[in-house]
């Protein structure tokens, strides 16, 4: 591929675009908040498959009689399947709620196959949310340190800002659309970090190499050349990853769809950010070839 797109000419547009996306995400996060799923809020979820189609109104009536007026009832896929969610009630042990709901619905409607039933205590939910947040921070910190050792501080900053950018936008989109955020989606978010990082490093690697081999050219030109050289690869890898995610979205079923959605968004944003956020930031930080003059150390590391 003999591309010569002047990526960096558009960098101010990209900065504005990223800015808008980030602000919108933060606003959505503050205003709408994350639609935290059962894993993080605690509560009860029961999914039953009946032999005949079931009217959710009837299910609600039965549950209200049982004292679960706060239950959320939803038909799934086919009309035979019903999902019941009961939010956590402070100070009340809910460990038997699932069993109660199951038995009264079977009694009131008919034979049902238990698809799944979940109960998460409120403390467990809080802990999972805390641990998840911690995992994100630790992941970002470790990445920062590793890139600082392998590259320089400026690259590390660029990479981490790109990652934070991706994570905020993915979470922001989840807030905007009100999609449920559970443990698998958290795992997807961490995988997005991994993926976007992979992309950013590949680009940074080429920028570093070009800074060393191509002398006497402006940093903007070198970065542009590097981005063009890596564009083919970046697009191909994003494409293959999107292909498998498509397979997961189409065939994986309802339980994995949130995970696949988060990753799909993350891959798209991650590809964009490794071009426009990480590289853009290098220019803003005024990267020079002197920043990368550490060949002696490199040689010894490669001999591992």
């Amino acid at each position, binding site marked *: 591929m003999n591309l010569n797109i002047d990526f960096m000419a558009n960098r101010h547009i990209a900065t504005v675009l990223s800015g808008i996306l980030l602000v919108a995400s933060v606003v959505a996060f503050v205003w709408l908040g994350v639609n935290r799923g059962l894993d993080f809020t605690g509560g009860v979820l029961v999914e039953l498959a009946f032999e005949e189609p079931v009217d959710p109104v009837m299910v609600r009536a039965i549950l209200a009689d049982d004292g679960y007026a706060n239950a959320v009832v939803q038909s799934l896929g086919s009309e035979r399947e019903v999902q019941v969610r009961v939010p956590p009630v402070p100070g009340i042990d809910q460990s038997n709620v699932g069993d109660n709901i199951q038995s009264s619905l079977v009694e009131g409607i008919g034979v049902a196959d238990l698809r799944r039933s979940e109960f998460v205590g409120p403390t*467990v939910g809080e802990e999972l949310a805390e641990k998840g947040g911690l995992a994100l921070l630790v992941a970002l910190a470790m990445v920062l340190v590793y890139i600082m050792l392998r590259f320089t501080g400026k690259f590390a900053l660029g990479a981490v800002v790109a990652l934070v950018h991706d994570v905020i936008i993915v979470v922001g989109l989840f807030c905007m659309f009100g999609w449920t955020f559970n443990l698998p989606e958290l795992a997807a978010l*961490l995988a997005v970090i991994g993926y976007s990082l992979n992309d950013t490093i590949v680009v940074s690697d080429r920028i570093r190499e070009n800074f060393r081999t191509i002398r006497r050219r402006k940093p903007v030109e070198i970065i542009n050349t590097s981005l063009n050289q890596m564009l083919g690869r970046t697009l191909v890898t994003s494409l293959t990853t999107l292909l498998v995610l498509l397979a997961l979205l189409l065939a994986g079923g309802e339980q994995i769809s949130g995970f696949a959605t988060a990753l799909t968004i993350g891959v798209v944003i991650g590809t964009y950010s490794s071009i426009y956020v990480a590289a853009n930031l290098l220019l803003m930080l005024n990267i020079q070839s002197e920043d990368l003059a550490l060949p002696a150390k490199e040689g010894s590391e490669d001999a591992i």
Partner: protein
Amino acid sequence: MPDNRVFGQNLFGTRTSADQPYRYPLWRYFIALGVLVLGILYALPNLFPPDHAVQIEVDNSSTIIGTRFTAQARELLENEGIDVKRAALTQRGTQIHLYDELDQIRAKDLLESRLNPVGMERQFIIALNLAPTTPQWLRDLGSTPMTLGLDLAGGIHFVLQVDMQSAINKQLGDEADKATAILRDANVRYIPTEDFVSETGVHIPFADESRRTEAMTALEISYGPPNHVLEEVEWRGAPAILITLTQDRLNEIENAAIEQNLTGLRNRVNELGVAEPLVQRLGSSRIVIELPGVQDSSEAKRILDKFATLEFRLEASVTDRPSQIEVLPYQGVDVRLLKENIVTGDNVTNAQQARDPETSLPQVNMQFDSIGGERINRATAPNIGRRMGIIFIEQRPVVVNEIVDGERVERTKIETSRRLISVATIQGALSYNSRITGISVRDAQELAILLRAGALAAPMYFVEERTVGASLGDENIDRGMLAVVIGLALVALFMIVYYKVFGVIADICLTMNMIVLVAVMSLLGATLTLPGIAGIVLTVGMAVDANVLIFSRIREELKRAAPATAIKNGYDRAFVTILDANVTTLFVALILLAIGSGPVAGFAVTLSIGIVTSMFTSIFVSRGLVHLVYGNRAVRKIWI
């Protein structure tokens, strides 16, 4: 070229002059081939679908399950027209493999009605099971299939929280009683209060500071490192001493409590008749229980909730009224005991089997908590020479077969059984540390276990429960596998279209990566979950990245070099990039693994293994294949 030092000769290349094609050393082909063969061997068991089987274990029966028993069970089924595929002894009993699910359920019912008579306590545990069908020669190599997680196999996952604060409070209450007893003995007056114990420790207030100094001297003899910290503090306006437990001691209490509860739970779970249950500690204060194949969570919970306890009572004297007396048999003789309890098993904190240091006769050493110690002391001091009995009360689930509406059902009843397990003469006033003598070695051993197991160290409650129905589990497997196949096919097709011959090579590497990934997971005994399958799918998409990097580099190099040199440079120069990118992704995956639990961990396991195996196949193996195609000859043009 100055570059050579940076990107040059590493693990994967041999330096030759750029003009002539160079050889790829033979040993590298052997390594690649060896890994492939091992990969196939250890991935293979996953291709054998498991058999529907029925597992029989002894519950209350005295029968020994051996080859004869197995043969009889087999004959019984075959006489009823159920074809038996295979029957084999396992570590815990016997397993009968059948041809389909229908036969499996019929066989269970049949065995149930023959082995467990109606109205009697259950003799055998008969559980449905999916038995692996790995051929013997593979099993001899230690090759077994991956375990399926509950979201794929169906079953119940419980997490129980052990209430540590109550275990610690119990201990602090003891400390308060012991400390005040010491002060009374030393004649140091303290200000009595109702609530010595707080969450931080034990506060003992004094009228003035000189008393506190005296008290400190008295307490320092028994209190201090490594278990306690004594501090002088101001408490509610009075000078006070604060006794706190050290972190080491707290950890010790927590560990003892959780271990004891684990033992109790394991016994309960065994009662449930599940083929492969898991009872495991989770973090510092939780216990996780997994019951594959079980669907009825309310029954499981009822059984896990029940435990045993002990009652200590004095033998009745002739003056006691009959209404105060309970008669229980002990070794064939009726023993008359008072109905009033001195203490119960709740007050026993620990028990060990031992021998009397002087007579070397067997005995059981017990430690009571403060309340228990005081009570038993008050009760035994005036009653030396009288006998004391210990009653073991067990609330256990008993599984009984009944006929309801003409259908045979298994019912679980909570049965309370009361047994007199020891009657011994009181030799002297008992206190916090007591011993029971006059019993046989075997009884001493059993009693110590029962005393320990009987006392539940701390209350527990359910904090998490996830049940996955069998139908959803099957669906999850099917959908997950379909996603893997579609993803693999799409990527493979794309690679061939885009990279031609090199695409085929990348696809071969991708396939090998899948085989090695599954083999490593099987070898490590990793559990496959739905997010784990998602991790595999993602690995497919990302594993080709290394090849994409190499191939696009080769294309670039082709513009300024001959094919052989371009290939060599492509591999060498892409290596550092691949390494950097994968090491950082591996970081993230390992953080996921360390911090995450459940679905997150399942995903992280496959992702981490996938990263490592994909680096091997897409660099090491693909280079070998490229040289097989283009090496050792002069190449004019390559298809990339």
